[in-house]
């Protein structure tokens, strides 16, 4: 086996040095009746593995091979070649959580940079070194709000991503906390939140699941917490106390849903209630600046059952990809990129609105919006896929129990969307709806 350096002679010699005759002597504590070989095929050469997996991969319709308009929490963006090269540097790829900081300054400094970038982007004071993804970060944000307020009820906006809602609801139900999920309102009007003495937080998505841009400031005045997502007015400026986001859009491929990177930012005064790792600056014995993991008295490996979260492994390498991509873009590049995304989405909205039977539901949006089609949106999306167009997400995929949403499709455009893609979509949709 090519990954195993020991030769049969090595093994014999080592067993003798250890003082046993047979390898199973070292497994003496394992009940003998359970020592049996699994019913699995023998190993394969590199070439054979490649052949097997490539055949599986080839059966999938890759986003880059067709006109592609799917979003809903995961977006197809162009990732500069240098990002993927850099995250495959051995020293980044094959290192561990930086528990020995003297030989992990690379990881620690990049995490410190990541935390700063996330804080700047969200308009918040402090950010952690990443969570698993946006949805789990949202669930952790709710738990954090409960700890801060010592209340146990979360109110979820109706236009929160349905799977984020389910993720939060699952953790809350299991932890014995209350969740009030408001009704979806795909037309995007403002929503009133009933906030009482038990309410710890209001969770709002920005832009929302249907692509609407709702001013969060009135909500923040009404409550004192929000969860948002986006590259527009920073949620920090809208009065949010905790901001989480899915960071996949920068540096990370679609990858069928993971691994992604959860962004988690808050106010300095709440830092000791934050989950996850934090890198901080300090000095070494010679007085040089260096970085370490810090405030670990919040974390499970120190505090065990009293920790702020059970999280250990986070999304280190995905956070690095995010950070490298953002360093390459800079503020100038990011602004241009966002503008191009918006421009393509505007063009797409106009072209789709011109298809008979199709109505665009959003007045304001960023790179994603909702359309209404006659009949079943799921059937339309399937018919489009058969024509080689991935035309968005039928809301029924995520909200199967709400027939009133069954004619809605959430559609996204990014910088990767071309004019030809848009024309192909409009033409295919016209045919499907005829």
């Amino acid at each position, binding site marked *: 086996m*090519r*990954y195993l350096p*020991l030769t049969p002679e090595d093994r014999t010699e080592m067993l003798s040095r*250890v003082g046993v005759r047979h*390898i199973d002597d070292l497994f003496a*504590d*394992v009940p003998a009746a359970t*020592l049996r070989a*699994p019913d*699995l095929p*023998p*190993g394969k050469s590199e070439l054979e593995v490649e052949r097997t997996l490539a055949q*599986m991969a080839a*059966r*999938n319709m890759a*986003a880059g091979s067709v006109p592609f308009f*799917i979003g809903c929490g995961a977006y197809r963006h162009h990732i500069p070649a240098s990002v993927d090269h850099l995250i495959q*540097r051995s*020293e980044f*790829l094959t*290192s561990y*959580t930086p528990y*020995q*900081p003297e*030989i992990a300054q690379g990881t620690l400094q990049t995490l*410190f940079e990541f935390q*700063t970038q996330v804080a700047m982007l969200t308009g918040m004071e402090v*950010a952690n070194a990443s969570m698993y993804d946006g949805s*789990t970060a949202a669930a952790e944000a709710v738990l954090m709000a409960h700890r801060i307020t010592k209340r146990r009820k979360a109110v979820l906006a109706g236009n929160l991503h349905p*799977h984020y809602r*389910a*993720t939060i609801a*699952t953790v809350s139900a*299991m*932890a*014995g906390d209350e969740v009030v999920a408001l009704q979806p309102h795909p037309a995007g009007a403002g929503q009133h939140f009933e906030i009482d003495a038990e309410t710890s937080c209001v969770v709002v998505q920005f832009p929302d699941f249907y692509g609407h841009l709702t001013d969060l400031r009135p909500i923040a005045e009404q409550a004192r917490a929000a969860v948002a997502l986006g590259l*527009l007015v920073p949620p920090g400026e809208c009065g949010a106390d905790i901001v989480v986001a899915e960071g996949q859009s920068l540096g990370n*491929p679609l990858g069928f849903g*993971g*691994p992604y990177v959860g962004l988690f930012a808050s106010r300095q005064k709440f830092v000791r209630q934050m989950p996850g790792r934090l890198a901080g600056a300090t000095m*070494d014995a010679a007085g*040089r*600046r260096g*970085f370490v993991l810090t*405030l670990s008295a919040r974390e499970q490996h*120190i*505090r065990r*059952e*009293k*920790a702020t979260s059970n999280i*250990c492994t986070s*999304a280190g*390498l995905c956070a*690095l990809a995010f950070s490298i991509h953002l360093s390459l*873009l800079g503020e*100038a590049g990011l602004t241009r*990129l966002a*503008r191009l995304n918006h421009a393509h989405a505007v063009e797409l909205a106009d072209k789709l609105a011109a298809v008979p039977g199709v109505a665009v539901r959003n007045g304001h949006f960023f790179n994603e919006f909702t359309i209404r089609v006659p009949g079943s949106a799921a059937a339309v*999306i399937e018919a489009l896929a058969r024509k080689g167009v991935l035309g968005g997400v039928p809301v029924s995929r995520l909200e199967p*129990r709400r027939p009133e949403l069954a004619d809605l499709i959430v559609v996204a455009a990014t910088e990767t969307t071309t004019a030809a893609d848009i024309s192909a979509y409009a033409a295919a949709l016209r045919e499907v709806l005829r």
Partner: protein
Amino acid sequence: MNRQTRPAEFGGSIPADTFTGNRALDIEEALVFEIGRPEVTGVDIETPADFSPRLGLLERKPGIGLPGLSEPEALRHYVRLSRKNYGIDTGMFPLGSCTMKHNPRLNEKMARLPGFADIHPLQPLSTVPGALALLAELGHWLRELTGAAAVALSPKAGAHGELCGLMAIKAALAARGEARSIVLVPESAHGTNPASAALLGYRVEAVPARSDGTVDAAEVEKHLSAEVAAIMLTNPNTCGLFERDVVAIAEAVHRAGAFFYADGANFNAIAGKSRPGDLGIDAMHLNLHKTFSTPHGGGGPGSGPVVFSAALAPFAPVPYLVCDAGGLRYVEHAGEAEPGAEPFGRLTAFHGQMGMFVRAMSYMLAHGGDGMRQASEDAVLNANYVRAGLQDLMSLPFGERACMHEVLFDDRWLEGCGITTLDFAKAMIDEGYHPMTVYFPLVVHGAMLIEPTESESKASLDLFIATLRDLAMAAKRGEKARFVNAPRHAPRGRLDETRAARRPVLRWTNPPPQLNEQ
């Protein structure tokens, strides 16, 4: 002017032995905020034709100050930083309970195939049959290796898997009309175990180990009651020992109507040798980033699928795959579940860590069943070889018995030397090694937990043993300077963690934060 050779540091001083502070290949690197500028970009982006924006009044004002780097500046920044890291490819990384084994590059290549990397989690399922086939194949291998009835693939890491397993247990108890309040956790467990149980509102009760480092079934029995929901047991445990009472513990737990959760962090010792399902476990997470060689990436991403016994299988979370006569069916909502199934909910927005699934599958296909078995045997042999090479100089807390894939020493052998476990670990850095896990598990004093993994050759182990023997003898001779001043040859000397925690500087600001102030 090359801005990248100017160590523009906030706080701290620059060593005087060179003008730049650099030492040949070891080059000081400033923060991206000190070398980048907001107007610079390393990505060329086309300007769209004139259009009227539809952002309403919510357009961001410029001036947040995010710095940009041109492409060559970015490459240099991150390559220089990478060189300040120790990775598995750098040298031996014997971090106990972390399984720093070789990460095959074939796995990376496979994960990047567009058919896996460039597919959206919400594409019509009809357009991703290959992805579902991969989930099915991975699930089959994991179930076969563990002897389990079902698998939940979506948990994002080990601790997320613990949560998944405990939630299924809670749901199963609720289905019986029971709300039990206690989870038993041995003292040697990873911190995530008690933290996961506490997150779900359980009271954590510690089970002490007996003098040989393992849990006594009779002791477990004493703690069991109608209030106990589950025991969480790591097997092999974090002392590197197989819990030899495991079957008796499982029987006692089941007699009490409780469930048996196994922490699979150390599954790499027995993968392909023994199936946890045959030992009586009800749920176990598998760290794909440990046993199945997906890279640790400086702290993630991981992946923590959970296998379930038949008793817990009906409560597995969505989404999951059903393979029956009709072929593959993917259940994404509780309402779509087959009769008798009661999914407890959803753990994450999408399907789990697909990128890690592909890597793990690539690893398993390469090994096959026989290769997995050989890898486990080699991991155990290597750990015992290290034990045999060091046990006369360093102290074993539980006597000279065989260990599994990792060997645990305590610090009794350092008594009177004026050198701590931490000093010893830092001296290993100067010798070109990543230290072992230190001060964990908490059940022994000054723990040093060494896990060489199957990826080390005999020659590599011989040099490692010789190095640790040399250090151990130096410690016993009282050569303190070699230890208390270590590391002397790393990119940084010992870092002041107390300062970092007392006055947290968690981000760069303009003007820069001051590190010097007391």
